[in-house]
């Protein structure tokens, strides 16, 4: 008797031929932590929504889902509301009321629980989640991480038996995301709560999961323990979102179990690939035009309001032509603020920004934003103002005063390059996170900038979209464009940037090429570097580790 039993489930959206879910069968026992993964559009969100009848989309459904041996469609509404909890992706839009305490009480109010009982349950849940300190605050004033924790808490207060989460951490920074995942693990271990989680960032969740389900084009291609998953997914794109040890293990056929954590990865490396010859990655040294930065920050001081403390305290930074420069740093370190100064959204009260040897204030708006600097904001949605992708491009063409023929050539070239031909008729809001970002990037490229500023470009997009983005950035770099991005994503920076800088407390504390930058750090570094430290000299990405392992393999066979 399984807790949840999905039998031959298929689902098709109205007016479409392709099945979004294709004959899926799986059984989930009570208290299991299940992670569902797969690339965008593989049907994972649709699968989750089938389990929550209130949210399930219209369409043709065949097969059955049983919840505690009752068909999910015949489940009483009240039971479904309280026993099956659902957390969505966007932390902000899920919050209904204006005060934290009211949000916590909202679900119980709907169930008609008397006020005296609500008081107790809300107190209980606030203590469990550590919400006491911001219990009386306005929900609008919370950070993204706090908001998502509040969403989780306001569902847990209804005491669900099954918790479903649809990419809950995609809008959070890595630290808030890790906190959130560990809270889920706590709920699972302490309360034996059954959890069904869709994620594309798997580094954290893999160690907590009991089983992992991999979906591909609506089919279930793997459903097994995390350690066995590696066997099913040779060369599948979903591999890129797996933890580093799994990705390295996947490339070699060893007899032992798949390592999941960095610690296990290390002992697996030591056992199978002892580095006797002290091999290392050969690094081509690059020369920079030291005297000729394209973009420079000189002793910048900035604060948002006279009464507030400085966000940037004497920041200096040089970016050279044709490089991918990545600014890393935690929340509130001032890195996004630095980007607003570089794009002249804000102005420093002391110090200056120099673009091509000329103070940025001296440029006219048109001069600056056309053909010089362009910014891809954190939320690509904010760049859209019309109801189709095509019209978005037309907006830009209008401001750039291209002739008709010129415009056509340019738009076609960009559509081709970003591979967005199929979506140009769609509404920008209907696209997936990765697609929205590509469209926003296309808009920016139409402005033909020399310098492209990107704010958290990897936030909320899946592993495959990340690789696509990286390839586009590399191409742009080869054309001589300069790319400056601000990111939390250490792995992405290590793999694709030419130089990295660490922001801390409003200042740049270290700058360097990724190899020297990450090898110099003990804590703020990639998983691959942590895993291979003192075994390999300078591996910082999983590709590096794989390359060295292969070399060692060859050495050993010779």
């Amino acid at each position, binding site marked *: 008797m399984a807790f949840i039993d999905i039998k031959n489930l298929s689902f098709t959206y109205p007016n479409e031929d392709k099945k979004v879910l294709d004959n899926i069968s799986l059984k989930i026992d009570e208290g299991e932590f299940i992670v569902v993964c797969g690339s965008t559009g593989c049907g994972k969100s649709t699968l989750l929504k089938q389990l929550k009848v209130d949210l399930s989309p219209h369409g043709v459904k065949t097969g059955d889902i049983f919840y505690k041996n009752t068909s999910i469609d015949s489940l009483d*509404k009240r039971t479904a509301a309280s026993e099956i909890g659902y957390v969505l992706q966007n932390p902000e*839009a899920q919050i209904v009321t204006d*005060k934290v305490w009211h949000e916590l009480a*909202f679900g119980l109010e709907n169930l008609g629980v008397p006020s005296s009982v609500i008081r107790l349950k809300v107190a209980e849940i606030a203590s469990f989640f550590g919400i006491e300190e911001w219990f009386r605050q306005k929900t*609008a004033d919370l950070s993204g991480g706090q908001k998502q924790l509040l969403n989780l808490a306001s569902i847990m207060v209804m005491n669900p038996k099954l918790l479903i989460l649809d990419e809950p951490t995609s809008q959070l920074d890595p630290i808030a995301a890790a906190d959130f995942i560990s809270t889920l693990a706590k709920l699972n271990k302490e309360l034996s709560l059954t959890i069904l989680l869709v994620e594309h960032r798997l580094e954290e969740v893999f160690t907590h999961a009991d089983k992992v389900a991999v979906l591909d084009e609506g089919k279930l291609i793997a459903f097994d323990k995390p350690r066995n998953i590696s066997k099913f997914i040779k060369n599948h794109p979903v591999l890129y979102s797996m933890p580093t040890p799994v990705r390295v293990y996947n490339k070699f056929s060893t007899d032992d179990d798949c390592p999941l954590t960095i610690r296990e990865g290390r002992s697996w490396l030591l056992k199978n690939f002892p580095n006797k010859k002290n091999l290392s990655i050969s690094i081509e040294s690059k020369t920079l035009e030291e005297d000729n930065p394209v973009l420079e920050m000189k002793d910048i001081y900035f604060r948002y309001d006279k009464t507030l403390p400085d966000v940037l305290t004497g920041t200096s930074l040089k970016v050279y032509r044709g490089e991918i420069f990545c600014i890393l740093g935690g929340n509130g370190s001032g890195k996004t603020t630095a980007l607003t100064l570089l794009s002249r*959204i804000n102005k420093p009260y002391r110090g200056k920004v120099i673009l091509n040897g000329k103070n940025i204030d001296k440029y006219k*708006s048109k001069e600056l934003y056309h053909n010089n600097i362009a910014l891809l904001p954190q939320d690509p949605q904010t760049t859209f103002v019309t109801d189709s992708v095509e019209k978005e491009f037309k907006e830009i063409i209008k401001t750039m005063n291209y002739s008709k023929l010129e415009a056509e050539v340019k738009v076609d070239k960009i559509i081709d390059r970003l591979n967005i031909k199929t979506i140009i008729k769609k509404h920008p809001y209907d696209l997936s996170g990765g697609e929205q970002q590509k469209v926003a990037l296309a808009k920016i490229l139409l402005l033909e900038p020399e310098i492209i500023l990107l704010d958290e470009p990897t936030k909320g997009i899946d592993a495959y979209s990340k690789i696509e983005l990286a390839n586009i950035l590399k191409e742009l770099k080869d054309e001589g464009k300069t790319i400056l991005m601000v990111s939390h994503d250490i792995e992405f920076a290590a793999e694709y940037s030419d130089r990295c800088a660490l922001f801390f407390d409003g200042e740049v504390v270290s700058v360097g090429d990724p190899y020297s930058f990450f090898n110099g750090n003990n804590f703020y570094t990639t998983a691959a570097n942590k895993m291979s430290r003192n075994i390999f000299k300078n591996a910082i990405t999983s590709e590096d580790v794989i390359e060295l392992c292969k070399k060692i393999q060859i050495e050993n066979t010779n």
Partner: protein
Amino acid sequence: MRAFDSYHPIVIFTYFCSTILFSMFFMHPIFLSISLASSILYLGFLKGFHNMKRTILISIPLFLIIAISNPIFSHRGVTPLFYINYNPITLESVIYGLSMAGMIVTVIFWFSCYNEVMTSDKFISLFGKISPSIALIISMTINTVPRMKRQIELITNSQKTLGMYVHSGSIIKRAKSSIRILSILITWALENAIDTADSMNARGYGLRGRTSHSLFKFKRNDFFLFSFIILLSALCVYGEMANYISFSYYPYISKINLSYFSFILYFSYLLLMTLPLVIEFKETIRWRLSISKI
């Protein structure tokens, strides 16, 4: 935490209802002066006397305009002071103008006090008892406004760096780009509303028998204060009905009633108007005493 604020919203709301209504309808000069003085004192206590300078500075011109315009436009009354263009300016209408101006300024002050004390969550919890759905709508609106503001800022910045001029260019251009931003904001809001609706549905919104939770409990203290406010208010209303404090400005100004009972009425009105201050004072003394005992 101010002592009066910690009472139940119903008590606070009733209190402000009675003070504001009485200030509006009781035109008796003694009542007016009591109310004006108390409102200034209370507002000063709430905002700090330093910060209320602006409120007072704004109210002075308003006071003057009303006080001066009444005798100019109204020529009722029996005691002409002088003539402008053969129109009498009467003593009665000057005094009535002053009272009227005083009344309006007083009501404004009381409303400022109300805004300081009656925060949105108190107001919502009050409504929750009467109509839970209206209370929820108010709460959702309060939550949405700052988010919309933020989104407008983000969209504006994005458009700026895309070379769309939001803050420059001709008025028509600017208006056009503002409309465009507004229209996409509505799309954004609707898009988000779907998520919000999902989240509400997922938590069982729309099931029968929704209750309304509030952090405020009606305690014994609240009951006592509530009864006291009702008692004082009833006394004042009785005084008005029984003509103890009726007062007329036209055609000539009536005499102020100085009977014993009217003094009781003046005193009870003073007590009602200064009630929050009395409570604060009492609480401060109690706090000092309790500390000195340690």
